[in-house]
């Protein structure tokens, strides 16, 4: 009846896939209690942006994937950038809604994908289990999205912005439908599990523990509605960290079996290169932050603020705001480069130096 299988290993799964959602909720509760809202931006920088880097390493940095998906890896970003630019010009609210909706779909698909890996590794389920699982995810997640007060506020507000003023009675109707769908589908899904077992195939209990842990995080934080902060942090930690862990182990296994062509990916990941993989993600986040001209102290969870440049009224110098401070930072960099050049040149070009003479 039961056949256990793990994505990584018993211990690693317990930490990253089964325990992390609970730890993430505790971290989010701590952040809600002790940290300001800016912590959401910090988590974004420490986890979400680096998890994008993990994608780039696997796709654009791995010859094997690049060869297989080259067309989509070129056409996709082009289409998306065009779509984004068009949205910014003609329909910014739609663009925002699209990003949010796709984010939710992406979150569902990631957890579903891990569930599929569990069945793959344990050799459990039937050929139809994938579709049943995916529908279960859509039903459970949609139920949360429609019913949780935090999300309700969001989608009703956006409908009003689009001049679709729905009534409370209409929303009550939608909620009722969501309950009916949930109450109908869950027994239907259980029937599928029962039939699976009856047909002599096994189910992987770890997959269900994983799905349960994921939905514990989502449901607990979505109904804890005094703060979007809680959902935003817990969700980002679970989604981003699990993805980074998955990519790291995937690339590590690819490197270990030596069947994949080396490339950028094998320089920054693989056995013994975890620190480089993480450092790469961190450096990428810094780069993105500089590129979009956002303050680096957003990394600091609201408790780190780079020393502001105070006014010196005695010299007639005003204090600097963010833009002025950034200009000062840029000017400091240029000056520092120049002075480093002056300093280094002061000792590497001594003509009396025998080694220098050899190069002349």
């Amino acid at each position, binding site marked *: 009846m039961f056949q256990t299988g793990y994505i990584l290993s018993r211990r690693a799964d317990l930490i990253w896939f089964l325990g992390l959602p609970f730890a993430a909720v505790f971290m989010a509760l701590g952040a809600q209690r002790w940290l300001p809202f800016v912590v959401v931006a910090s988590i974004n920088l420490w986890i979400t942006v680096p998890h994008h880097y993990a994608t780039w390493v696997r796709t654009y940095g791995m010859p094997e994937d690049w060869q297989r998906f080259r067309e989509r890896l070129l056409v996709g970003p082009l289409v998306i950038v065009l779509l984004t630019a068009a949205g910014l010009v*003609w329909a910014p609210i739609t663009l925002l809604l699209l990003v949010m909706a796709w984010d939710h779909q992406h979150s569902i698909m990631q957890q579903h994908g891990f569930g599929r890996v569990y069945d793959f590794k344990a050799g459990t389920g039937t050929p139809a289990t994938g579709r049943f699982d995916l529908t279960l995810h859509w039903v459970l997640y949609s139920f949360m999205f429609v019913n949780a007060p935090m999300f309700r506020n969001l989608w009703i507000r956006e409908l009003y912005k689009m001049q679709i003023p729905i009534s409370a009675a209409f929303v009550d109707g939608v909620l009722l439908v969501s309950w009916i769908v949930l109450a109908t589908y869950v027994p239907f899904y259980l029937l599928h599990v029962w039939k699976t077992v009856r047909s002599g195939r096994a189910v992987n209990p770890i997959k269900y523990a994983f799905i349960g842990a994921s939905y514990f995080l989502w449901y607990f934080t979505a109904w804890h509605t005094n703060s979007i902060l809680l959902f935003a942090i817990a969700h980002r930690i679970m989604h981003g960290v699990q993805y980074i862990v998955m990519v790291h182990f995937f690339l590590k296994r690819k490197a270990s079996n030596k069947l994949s062509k080396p490339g950028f990916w094998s320089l920054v990941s693989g056995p013994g290169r975890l620190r480089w993989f993480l450092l790469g993600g961190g450096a990428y986040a810094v780069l993105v932050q500089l590129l979009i001209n956002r303050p680096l102290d957003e990394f600091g969870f609201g408790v780190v*603020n780079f020393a502001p440049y105070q006014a010196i009224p005695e010299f007639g110098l005003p204090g600097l705001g963010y833009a002025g401070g950034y200009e000062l930072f840029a000017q400091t960099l240029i000056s520092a480069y120049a002075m480093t050049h002056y300093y280094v040149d002061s000792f590497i070009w001594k003509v009396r130096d025998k080694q220098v003479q050899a190069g002349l």
Partner: protein
Amino acid sequence: MWFKRYRLLAVIWGIALVVGVREYRVSREMEQPVDFLTAEGASFADVMSHLNPDEPDTDFLQGMQALFAGDPVGFRSRIEDALASDIKHNEMLLQFYGQYLVDEAADWREVNPAINRWRSNFPFSKRTITLQFTVGPPIANEAALLRQALSRVPWIADSELQLSTVDGDRVWSVTLMFRRGETVDVRQVLAAMSSL
């Protein structure tokens, strides 16, 4: 084959096109976007009051409706309910409440925590707070003196000054931009203004 490969992008494009056309048409017909914090947001506030009666965001909406209905006591009560829930994510609420207290000339013991609460949660915010002061007869280099006095206040990153006349009185409007990481104390602005 082609559709299978680009199915997801095609679906996304399709949905975005339908919703985007709707938004574009709506935005062309409307003079300005829906402002949920004014009387035109009453319907939305009613729906949310029915669906999410105990939420701090709903308290904020109800508070704003009370304010527009000329009920400042109801406004204060609702906002205080929202703040009591330790709300952190609603910048509009936090900033608006700080500005409201300033406009109402509330005591600094109320104003300082309200503004600091907003600034600590949104230290990178570009939003400002505007204060108004009635001043006496003009003096030489008034604006420069005022700007210099404000520049000595550690939490002010920058300020904009505007002089106007209201009912025959000369009134300075001072729009304050904040330096992150610094604790706000409005008494320092009052002291700077009194230097005139």
